[in-house]
């Protein structure tokens, strides 16, 4: 099975404290630490496990610039055979629809049986996979936390409300958005990344992909981010302060008062 996994370089939420910039209209971006979107590691791992069972190969692709190289190589070190970088000035500032339009161009140049994305990325839009599927007229399932292989089709489980699983049969080729917890993504060490450091990663432009530059990038954005702001915190929590022993004494009183201690 030929599998394409779409990945993204994002600010690492575990490594950054998000603060507003001096102008108060955006977050401070100068010192952000970036890594691969957490969901995408699960998608790449799932793809590798499928290929281990039935053969074929995994290709990872991202829409980005030179800095996205390290993200592709990290996923290649997990076991993806190929990486593709979709890079063009015209792509800058693309929204979910723009990214899906660019990815569609990439899917059309390959012969993929299955396209995977992470269920969501840093902005929480959770939209690229569903949009890409609709553009390709492929069937789509979101929030997938189990994949079983069948003949020309898959059985997939979607994680829905209340811990329930929605089981579906889906024809190939299709697009799936992969939820965290579906597997345990393998560890990637420095040695693994070094082993793929020499592999050539082809770069494709808008012209290579047959993408009309007017439909992507900032030109194609219909939902425009105006600014960032810190939400009003409402009443907020009563903060306990003092020495550790003072805080613990207060906390024990609070636990007793609210029935948390018998």
């Amino acid at each position, binding site marked *: 099975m030929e599998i394409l996994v779409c990945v993204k370089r994002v*600010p690492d*939420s575990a490594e950054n404290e*998000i603060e*507003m910039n001096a102008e108060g209209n955006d977050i401070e971006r100068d010192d952000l630490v970036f890594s691969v979107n957490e969901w995408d590691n699960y998608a790449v791992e799932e793809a590798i496990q499928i290929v281990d069972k039935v053969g074929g190969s995994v290709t990872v692709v991202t829409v980005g610039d030179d800095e996205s190289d390290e993200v592709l190589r990290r996923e290649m070190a997990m076991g993806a055979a190929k990486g593709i970088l979709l890079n063009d000035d015209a792509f800058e500032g693309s929204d979910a*629809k723009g990214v899906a339009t660019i990815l569609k161009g990439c899917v059309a140049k390959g012969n993929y049986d299955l396209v995977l994305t992470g269920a969501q990325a840093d902005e*929480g*839009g*959770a*939209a690229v996979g*569903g*949009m890409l*599927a*609709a553009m390709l007229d*492929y*069937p*789509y*399932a*979101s*929030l997938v936390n189990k994949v079983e292989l069948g003949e020309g089709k898959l059985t997939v*489980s*979607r*994680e*829905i*409300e*209340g*811990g*329930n*699983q*929605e*089981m579906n049969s*889906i*024809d190939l080729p*299709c697009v799936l958005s992969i939820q*965290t*917890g579906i597997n345990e993504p393998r560890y990637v060490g420095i040695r693994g990344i070094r082993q793929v450091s020499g592999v050539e990663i082809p770069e494709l432009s808008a012209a290579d992909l047959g993408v009309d530059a007017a439909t992507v990038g900032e030109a194609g954005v*219909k*939902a*425009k*981010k105006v*600014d960032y*702001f*810190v*939400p009003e*915190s*409402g009443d*907020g*929590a*009563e*903060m*306990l302060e003092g020495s*550790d*022993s003072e805080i*613990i004494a207060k*906390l*024990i009183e609070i636990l007793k008062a*609210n*029935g*948390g*201690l*018998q």
Partner: protein
Amino acid sequence: MAQVFAYLVHNDGVLDDSAMELVVAAKAVGDDVTAIVTGSGIDAVADAAAQIFPKVIKVDDAALAYPNAEVVRKALVTIIPKGSVVLFANNTFAMDCAPGLSIKMDAAYVSDIIGLEADGTTLKTIRQEFGGEVNTHVDVDAADGAVVTLRPGTFAPDESKAAGGSVEAAAAGDMSAKRTFIEIVEPEAGDVDITKADLLVSIGRGIEEEDNIEIAHELAKAMGAGAEVSCSRPIVDAKWLEPSRQVGTSGCTVKPKVYMACGISGSFQHMGGIKGGFVIAINKNENAPIFQVANVGIVADILEFIPELTEALGDL
């Protein structure tokens, strides 16, 4: 503003409460507001919707007995004129259906909004980023239509049920699909039932390592028979605790007397699983969103604080 449609979900023949919020959101967008319900044998659901919306379109077809996103999308594309604004409550169905619908309608798309106003053909919306640490204003050009998913709780619901609306049946059209629903599988019962606990010691990413989970168990033990250990999603994803201990929209809904959130940032998905009780948050990040919703907050590293609290309880 153009026509506004709201897609309503229902379970076991009962209209979801989100309808009462969607009608408020729809009227904030425009005056011409219509609800759409799809399913098989849904007269009662459509009538319930007509108490809330002035107009209801029902699509009653055996192929829609289960809301398969691909089939529902086909029905919506058939019914809804291009250029309309379409609202969904943000849930796992909307995540499945709405992005693709925006492509098929050639409309703008914005998801999981927590604020909505109309200004001409622009929708002025608010979204969260970075787990709620910051918000963004997002202006949506809806001149050619828009698909919008709304986070539950954004608007106060209109519970009057006095709309006295009309119900009109519409034909579904082509209902073939390349994805078919098989069944719903319910979660396996775990060895603990956190929904029955009086006190939950709930751990998140701040626990850092699997071996550290023991300190949460020790604290729960020191707190007495009514206390259990629960957790947020990353702990279950890492397989450090079983899924039956997960609190949140994709896990259990809990109502303890006291909920102690230890090293949990407080995402919307997590807080959606807490339906009552006194919330105590302990987190080393003073900007953690959990401090906005907790009753009491403590800025501390749980790996140091929890053992100290356990020891103090042992001395009582």
